[in-house]
């Protein structure tokens, strides 16, 4: 009887171990880029040829893009084939890769993990509609800007709370925002202003993804949500009966590509590639392709605190 029992126990243990090994031994199936060598013209341009000669280390390398794929138009998984990422930023990253001769793969992380992921060496760069701010740069990255920022304010259809911008019209409202987004301190800055005006302070509700924020507006939990105007327009197009845009706000930020602080060679190569991509009209072309009507080029400039 004892033999049976210990055999069975041993069998259970072996089985569990085998299952564990099998599970951990499975090959990792990270999502792959949608486009491969998608921009041959760019790659063949004199500027890019020269850049590859100047940066031979980048040629044939693979650069991991830390991204937060929750912004339709910029970066999301492809609903038809969720193993791919699609959007303006994905194409832009591929274009830079084509120009400099490297491949791109992806590491999707939470928004607040974008900078730490690059700073800790888990990924090489961030092309994820990330606004370049000094605070974020202090996290250990340098930014190369490429777009200006226009924010839209998403509200319920008819704008029942009469929101007119990041101003005292927000007093007493609940504002849904993505965790870690630059709009958070801007809205929070309204709290003392509302109080000074004798009004109720706005409440900030923080969510992990844009979809959660939109659901908060749809369910009436929040009155306003701020994100890139193109993204906001995308949501309104999906729910035209229920959603509206209150106002477009120009923010004093630029969208930037983040690279590890101190990696000047890579940073400068990306900057030079961006100059070529903008100069050739490709960035504007991509913006049109992804219906980013309000995409205003920003001259590639470096923001560094290191």
């Amino acid at each position: 009887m004892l033999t049976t029992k210990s055999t069975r126990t041993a069998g259970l243990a072996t089985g569990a171990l085998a299952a564990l090994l099998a599970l951990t031994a499975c090959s990792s199936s990270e999502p792959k880029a949608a486009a491969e060598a998608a921009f041959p013209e760019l790659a063949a341009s004199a500027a890019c040829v020269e850049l590859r000669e100047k940066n031979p280390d980048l040629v044939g390398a693979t650069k991991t893009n830390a991204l937060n794929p929750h912004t339709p138009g910029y970066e999301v998984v492809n609903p038809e084939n969720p193993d791919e990422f699609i959007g303006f930023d994905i194409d832009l990253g591929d274009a830079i890769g084509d120009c400099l001769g490297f491949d791109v793969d992806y590491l999707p992380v939470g928004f607040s993990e974008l900078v730490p992921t690059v700073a800790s060496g888990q990924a090489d760069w961030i092309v994820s509609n990330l606004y370049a701010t000094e605070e974020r740069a202090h996290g250990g990255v340098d930014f190369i800007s490429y777009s200006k920022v226009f924010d839209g304010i998403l509200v319920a259809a008819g704008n029942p709370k009469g929101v007119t911008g990041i101003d005292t019209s927000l007093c007493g409202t609940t504002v849904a925002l993505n965790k870690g987004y630059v709009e958070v301190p801007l809205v929070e800055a309204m709290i003392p202003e509302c109080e000074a005006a004798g009004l109720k302070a706005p409440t900030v509700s923080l969510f992990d993804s844009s979809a959660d924020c939109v659901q908060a507006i749809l369910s009436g939990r929040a009155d306003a949500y701020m994100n890139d105007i193109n993204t906001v327009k995308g949501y309104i197009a999906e729910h035209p009966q229920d959603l509206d845009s209150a106002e477009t706000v120009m923010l004093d930020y630029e969208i930037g590509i983040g690279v590890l602080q101190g990696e000047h060679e890579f940073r400068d190569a990306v900057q030079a590639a961006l100059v070529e991509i903008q100069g050739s009209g490709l960035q504007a072309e991509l913006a049109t392709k992804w219906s980013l009507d309000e995409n205003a080029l920003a001259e590639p400039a470096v923001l560094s605190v290191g």
Partner: protein
Amino acid sequence: MTEFLHYLTLPYLLDGILFTLRLTAMGFVGGMILGLFLAAMQLTRFRALTWVARAYVTLYRGTPLILQLVFVFSVLPRAGIVLSPLVAGGVALALNEAVFFAEIFRSGIKGVDPGQVAAGRALGLRPALLMRRVVAPQALRSMVPSLGSEAVTTMKNSALASIIAVPELTLRTQQLASATFDYFEIYFATAVMYLVLTAALTLIQLAVERALDLDRPARASLRTWASRLGRPATGVPAAPAEPDPRRVPDRTDSGLGSVARLTQADPPPRSFGQALIEAYGLRKSYGENEVLRGIDLQVREGEVIALLGPSGSGKSTLLRCINHLEGLDGGAVLVGGTSIGYGDRGGELVERHVAKQRVDAGVGMVFQQFNLFHHLTARENVAAPLRWVHGWSREDAAARADELLAQVGMAHRADALPRHMSGGQQQRVGIARALASNPRVLLLDEPTSALDPELVAEVLGVIQGLARQGGLTMIIATHQLRFAREVADRVVFMAGGVVVEQGTAEQVIGDPQVEATRRFVRAMDSAEV
């Protein structure tokens, strides 16, 4: 609904399940292994290890898993440790789960009746063997429900690894929800997937519980079934068809009573060998309470001693000091010239050496609460220690067990578990177990005190049979004056932690010289009559 079904069968999400399973497996198995170490560190007598483990438990139980995940993923690389997202997630989960597994293990082990450990030690099991054969199998059975529930918790916690880029089910769900606007359909589909996975874990838990269930009918032999069917109720001991010839007469046997007086003179005068047990100035305290205050006692080979005395007089403690189940605070006790528990220079030995001393000295012990190993049948209770400690073959041990069970009238219950036996039956098996390795000394610690009155006789009968056979040295702590008169060569009366009077039963019980003895004899006599 079609959208829901579409997402329920979407390969992208199903692939996410694989990652969820891998995270769960790493968290569960890794957590269990680390948890074992943490539990062991907390149960050891090395204070430094205990404190390290406590600090770890406090740290990991006191911080959110989400922070621990970020720590392993984003902070460790700064120290040069770069793990892939999946491994980082698995490691963080394992580090976190270890704390909870450690507590499950600790409560499982602490929940095992201390009597089981005492019995194992008395039988000469080394600590590792005792843990593996006695404590762990019993603790494991009680831990399975908690372990199953922890597996489900691990699986649900694995969803948090989504923030560190492990492409598991939750991360894929969120990404898909961001891309498609089918928010609810996707979340419902994912919820169903998690439900199926956790339900599967629950089924595994139930299957393991069933596999480990000692009462599982499939594992019971035909013989056990037959014997169970033949018995009206398991809790009530059926009287043997014929009176047991070894049974001692007691006042339930009409007509016998005081006329059948059996003493050390019957059978004719016995001869005793050399001193086998020698105690000198034995002292033992529990905190402020001094239980033994200088015991001097010599027991010769073949002698049967009845140890009498009021509750709290130190009888049990004295017995437990003889084979070093309790350490001494002063004095010495020798069994066949060996001071069990102490080295040649008088230093206290570690338990695994003491175990060998107990085996070499040949000291068997019978406990007031029987302390049969709950997870073993009567036969295994007797046979297993022979294999584990004395290296007997399976066949020899089983044959010896059957022989002894027959001797104590328990052959018909050889396949029964202790919980299905009456107290008297358990104690008879306990005696058989103590006798199995042919000890030179048998210590019986109030062997009938925990029994219902009608079950006392069957156990006393067995002990009396042993006394009559002769040869075996016995010290019996008891309250049964009549029994003491009948079996004891010498009665030792203890009170207040010292031996106040000793001599033949006639002297000590029949004509006590000391007031404490007189009071005790009067009280016991009036209780017995």
